[in-house]
């Protein structure tokens, strides 16, 4: 390595350290964005660029063309609209449930209780499990002859086909993803809670403030920066949900739990002929939606921090 330094001179050494990383970043993150744009305006089922004719906005038109925008079945790609609709329902519900439950859990663990490390560990445990393991675990619990139905019949209720009924499948898709990722956010929020100085609470106790008042006037405002990080991470991840639901419900029953990423995967890779152009167009639409979300979030965050 000293030879390299002699050859290039010490001033070029930082680039020697940077080049491997920059190459990987350019090749697998930045370049793909531009290739994606190219894909979205070209057609045919061929992968390699030289074999793909230019089709203009046809892919976007195919995706967005609908007779009646409120009824997915009138759209030329109704699955895209169902996936989009499901995602738009899934994300707010899942994010709200995730942050609500994670915050409540973090506050409970942050109390002056015994076994804090134990509780933190148990709630974090599912984060370690792979999405496939998570999905199969819950499938085993939720199947017709599964443990949950076993518990139901034990108390005299009829068994339910949890993953066959559309509404139930949607509920469980939210439940299982919250179950799997809640611990991650609980730990970040716990760290945020612990960084709030104790004497602020002591002062509130002196003034005999009610717990609710302490929560809304001290905990929430002081936790705002952490909550913002959690919120952004949570939304970005929620939009990208794929693995758990692909294995748990496969997007079904029907198209009740199909999300946008699964649509991209199936259009581009699973369903023959592979339609890379359509998948790329859907990805870019997803990317645009995410970008808008992020910008709005950052604007709101900036606006809030001045008050």
């Amino acid at each position, binding site marked *: *390595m*000293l030879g*390299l*330094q002699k050859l290039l001179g010490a*001033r070029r050494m*930082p680039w020697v*350290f*940077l080049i491997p*990383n*920059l190459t990987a*970043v*350019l090749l*697998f*993150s930045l*370049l*793909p*964005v531009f*290739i*994606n744009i190219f*894909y979205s305006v070209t057609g045919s089922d061929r*992968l*390699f660029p030289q074999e793909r004719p230019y089709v203009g906005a046809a892919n976007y038109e195919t995706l967005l063309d609908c007779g009646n925008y409120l009824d997915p079945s009138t759209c030329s790609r109704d699955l895209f609209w169902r996936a989009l609709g499901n995602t738009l329902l899934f994300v707010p519900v899942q994010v709200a449930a995730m942050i609500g439950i994670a915050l409540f*859990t973090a506050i*409970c*663990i942050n*109390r*002056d209780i*015994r076994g804090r490390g134990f*509780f*933190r560990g148990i*709630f*974090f*445990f*599912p984060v*370690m*499990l*792979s*999405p*496939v393991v998570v999905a199969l*675990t*819950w499938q*085993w619990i939720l199947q017709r002859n599964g443990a949950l139905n*076993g518990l139901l019949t*034990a108390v005299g209720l009829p068994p339910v086909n949890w993953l066959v009924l559309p509404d139930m499948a949607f509920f469980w898709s939210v439940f299982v993803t919250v179950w799997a990722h809640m611990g991650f956010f609980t*730990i*970040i929020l*716990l*760290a945020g809670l612990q960084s709030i100085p104790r004497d602020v609470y002591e002062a509130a106790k002196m003034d005999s403030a009610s717990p609710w008042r302490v929560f809304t006037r001290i905990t929430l405002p002081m936790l705002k920066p952490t909550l913002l990080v959690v919120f952004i*991470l949570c939304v970005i991840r929620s939009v990208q949900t794929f*693995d758990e639901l*692909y294995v748990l419900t496969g997007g079904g029953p029907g198209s009740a739990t199909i999300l946008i*990423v699964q649509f*991209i*995967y199936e259009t*581009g*890779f699973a369903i023959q002929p592979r339609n890379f152009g359509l998948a*790329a167009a859907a*990805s870019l639409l997803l*990317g645009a939606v995410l970008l808008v979300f*992020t910008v709005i979030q950052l604007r709101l965050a900036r606006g809030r921090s001045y008050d």
Partner: protein
Amino acid sequence: MTELMVRDEQGSILRFLTRRRGKIRADWTDWATYLYLFLGVAIMFAPVLWVVTSSFKTPANLAEFPPTFLPYATETVAVEDYDEPLPLYEVKTEGGETRLLAQVRRVGLRAQMVDPANPEAGRIVVPIADAEPVRRISFTFANYARLLSTSGSDLWLFVYNSLFITVVATIITVIMNSMAAFALSKYRFKGNTVALVAILMTLMIPPTVVLVPTYLIVAELGLVGNLWGVILPTVATPTGVFLLRQYMLTIPDELIEAARMDHASEWRIYWRIMLPLSAPALAVVAIFSILSRWNDFLLPLVVLNRREVYTLQLALASFQDENRIQYDQLLAMTTLTALPLAFAFIFLQRYIASGIASTGIK
């Protein structure tokens, strides 16, 4: 668990749990907290535990409804003149007493049984409604044995593939990211801001959005169906660079100056000074990398299209595609896939938690 605690009002566990610093008695909010947390523990942990215990059940036990929590097996007994051990039943006789009998065969709603203590007495016909199988808790490893012996499953190959991807990708990630972080934290040069922004910008690009072009680049490199095809796209993580750079900024520049005085090369400074001093941050980056690579699904699903290069996760998911789900082997394999990380978790829980807490990003 909660139920047990509430009933155990006078118990010492309870007093132990409710003892508080500075305060003798716990108030109702503490009770509510414990109730919630123990309920949470049950919901978080019971499903996993259920899968693990179920993986030790016999297929007959698995098919039962309502399901049992622990694996049970019918007890058998060896009886003279019979080649196979016979299942043991507890039979209510007409007199109201119970006897232990071994079932020879079953015809319709009647079973022919013998007394294992006295087989010469001949067969006794018993209505099956009066017979209860004698069962005891028994963990059978048959599912695991079958999983390992089935030629179609190639389990060790999948374990190897997963391990190879995880280990190689993590080593490359740690070295590559720390090199970049070193350059971005300890040098002033033209373009350092541009380089940093370029790397951090990739944070904004969700991997799913660039799935199709990533596949194209992997294909152009000739790496479809190759383990390197899922390693290379994942090694340069922006969060890793960011985290390591923040950490390296806290290492004093005087150390580097001193090393330069002693004519150490820049590479030597990186390898001998920066890397050892950044060990805590490197550990966090390594743990994140191991977790993500072991659990990866979408990219391997797209790139690894042959069974020989399947990872454990892909193999596990493909169990489902077959027409009939073989729950016995599926459960065993689920347990096996989760096990390595479960062990890692037990030892690393503290560091993982503090690592996540300190960064707030994955």
